[in-house]
């Protein structure tokens, strides 16, 4: 074989082997050469290989930040010298250093703006207010830091449904630690997740997939997670339940509850296992909740004695109007205007359940009375429609009687006319007599 040909053949073979071994640019990742991924993916130790798996899904990778973006070093250096601290290599942060490690970029507004004109800027100061951060500072290693919630290698965007901090996944992520097993030996409640799943918020988020429903972070905060204190609770709930929150904040009950050391909205609605409120809650006698504070014959009790009947009166007024209107509709009568009034009355019923949170007798009774008025107007329309229906049938029956009578008389006249075979005089005005 000629030497030139042999050399060419060896070069081809060598290139082929090199390619087969995966040396060279690795599958379409950015940056073009990332020595970290290349080397680490081929190591034996699982601990070192694991971070390279699925790295393309990492939100940092998608923004063209490779391993060096967080860990420093030189990704173009194919040798171990890539991990030279002189080249900026930071290595793996210790547990208590993780937050500052991430904050290096995420708390830097200028840097974050390069990736997103409206970025979320992490605040170490905020994180330091949280129970998690405080515990970490005490040396507790069983407390959440960034990677426990956001995951690590790959860190997925919170908009990704596979991310542990995707809205619908947040409760189960928190429950990874906030459960009886993990928290053994600590004096914290561990039933939150179980309660939440039974709650109306939990069912909305976890069963119906409604991401507008609150998860743990919606009320407790994200990075500054703390249990909210009394005043904050009604502000928190009021974020979504605006009207109730505003009315409650202006009411006397808010101050009274604070003085009594109770916890705002939670006093009546619970926190983790909030259920759909029912009208039975409004009463000083069980299952009503007002009796928690208002003793019999207190001014509050007297107020409920006025409100509760008004409430039930409105509901029964609406029910009565509804049944009258439906009866009329079944009989084929038009009930549109009655229905409109009924809808307005129902709107007042929905409204009074919110206005209740003002705990102001005057406001509440105004809405109740307005609703009751509308409901009785609607009922009146229903009754009028039914009366109309009855009158129509009576009118029809009478006119049929007249028509049949007239038909009979005409037929009798025809018969008589033709039996005699004599020309019969016309009925009607008498002719001019001569």
């Amino acid at each position, binding site marked *: 074989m000629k030497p030139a040909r042999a050399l060419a053949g060896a070069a081809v073979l060598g290139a082929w082997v090199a390619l087969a071994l995966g040396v060279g640019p690795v599958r379409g990742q950015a940056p073009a050469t990332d020595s970290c991924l290349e080397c680490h993916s081929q190591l034996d130790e699982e601990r070192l290989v694991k971070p390279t798996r699925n790295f393309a899904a990492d939100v940092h990778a998608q923004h063209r930040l490779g391993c060096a973006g967080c860990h420093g070093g030189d990704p173009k250096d194919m040798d171990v010298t890539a991990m030279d601290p002189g080249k900026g290599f930071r290595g793996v942060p210790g547990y208590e250093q993780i937050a500052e490690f991430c904050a290096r970029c995420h708390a830097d507004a200028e840097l974050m703006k390069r990736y997103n004109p409206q970025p979320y800027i992490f605040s170490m100061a905020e994180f330091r207010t949280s129970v998690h951060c405080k515990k970490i500072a005490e040396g507790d290693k069983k407390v959440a830091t960034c990677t426990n919630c956001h995951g690590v290698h790959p860190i997925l965007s919170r908009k990704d449904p596979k991310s542990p901090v995707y809205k619908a996944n947040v409760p189960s992520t928190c429950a990874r630690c906030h459960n009886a097993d993990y928290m053994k030996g600590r004096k914290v409640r561990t039933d939150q997740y179980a309660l939440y799943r039974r709650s109306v918020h939990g069912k909305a988020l976890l069963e119906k997939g409604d991401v507008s429903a609150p998860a743990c972070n919606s009320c407790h905060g994200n990075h500054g997670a703390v249990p909210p204190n009394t005043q904050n609770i009604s502000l928190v709930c009021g974020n979504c339940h605006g009207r109730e929150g505003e009315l409650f904040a202006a009411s006397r009950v808010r101050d009274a509850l604070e003085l009594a050391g109770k916890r705002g909205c939670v006093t009546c609605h619970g926190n983790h296992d909030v259920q759909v409120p029912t009208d039975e809650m409004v009463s000083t006698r069980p299952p009503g909740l007002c009796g928690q504070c208002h003793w019999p014959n207190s001014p509050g009790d007297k107020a409920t004695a006025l409100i509760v009947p008004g409430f039930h009166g409105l509901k029964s007024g609406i029910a009565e109007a509804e049944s009258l209107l439906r009866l009329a509709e079944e009989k084929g009568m038009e009930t549109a205007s009655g229905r409109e009034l009924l809808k307005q009355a129902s709107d007042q019923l929905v409204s009074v359940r919110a206005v209740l949170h003002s705990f102001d007798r005057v406001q509440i009774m105004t809405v109740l009375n307005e609703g009751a008025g509308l409901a009785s107007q609607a009922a009146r329309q229903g009754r009028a429609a039914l009366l109309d229906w009855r009158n129509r*049938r009576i009118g029809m029956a009478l006119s049929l009687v007249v028509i049949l009578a007239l*038909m009979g008389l005409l037929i009798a006249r025809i018969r008589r006319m033709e039996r005699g075979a004599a020309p019969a005089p016309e009925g009607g005005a008498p002719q*001019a007599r001569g």
Partner: protein
Amino acid sequence: MPGGGGPPARPGWREWLDVRLGLEPLRRLAEHKEVPAHRHTFWYYWGGMTLFLFGVQVATGILLLLYYRASADEAYESVRFLMTQVSFGWLIRSIHSWSANLMIGAALIHMFSVFLLKAYRGPREVTWLSGMVLLGLALAFGFSGYLLPWNELAFFATKVGTDIVGDLPLVGRFLLRFLRGGDQITGGTLTRFFGVHVAILPAIATVILGVHLYLVQRHGMSVPPGVEAAGPARRMRFVPNFLMRDMVGWLAALGVLALLSALFPWELGVKADPYAPAPAGIRPEWYFVWMFQTLKLLPSHVGPLEGELVGILGIGAAGLVWTLAPFLDDAEGRGPRARLWSMLGALAVVYVTLMTVLSYAWGGNP
């Protein structure tokens, strides 16, 4: 006329009108007009019944005009207003809607009985032709009036109906745009249909009706061939005998209208929304249903032509043949040709009835 001797002291109002309007010939006609009385006389009443119901339509229609508004924004609301706020508005409207159906029913009975009794024979050919025009006008009245409440059913029924017109060869596209006032059914369509329903059709109908009634007076009532063969028929006086019998029928019709309006008031429906999908089971009014069902039963293609087109042309051809019956049937109404035409007439009645019943039995799904 005054009896007894001597001129009356003062002329009565009848004489006064007579001198000025020349009513004497009319009075003579009324007094002397006679109607053949035989076993088929029952069918003679149906023309008058149709006329009576048309009168009901004109009266109730004029009343409705006082409250109806013919714009897409206001039509439905004005009908709703009429049904709920106006005294007896529900009654006038329900009578108008029911009487429309009864009138077309009476017209069809009238036409079929005329056909089967061969009353179209000479010299009554023009009477027959004018009658066919009147039937067409009645159907046009029905079709245009149906859209006016601007509810969902009406909107889509009109859409389907005008779509079928659009399928006609050559003229279809033009006719569709002419009927709809554009390519789609819009408020412009409503205005156009309204103008047709309350002005154009009434004007034409008045003229044609006048011709039809004049011709009926001129030629008198035809006697069916079978009765003719038995010899000259007994006759009854039009006034008062026949007319009183007519009135009994009209009273019955009035009673039926009262019953239907009180027990089955005409529905308001849901306001038309051009962007909403068509509800299931759209069907035109019952008098068009047999054509509709025929088209539904045809296969999608017959030879090189679209099935629907074949259906439309076929129905059109059948209608033409039907209209030309006086010229194609035997002049005396006797013999094998006459029997053939009687059979065709009977078949037509059976076919139309069957198609109508089937469509309702199958709920619009063949």
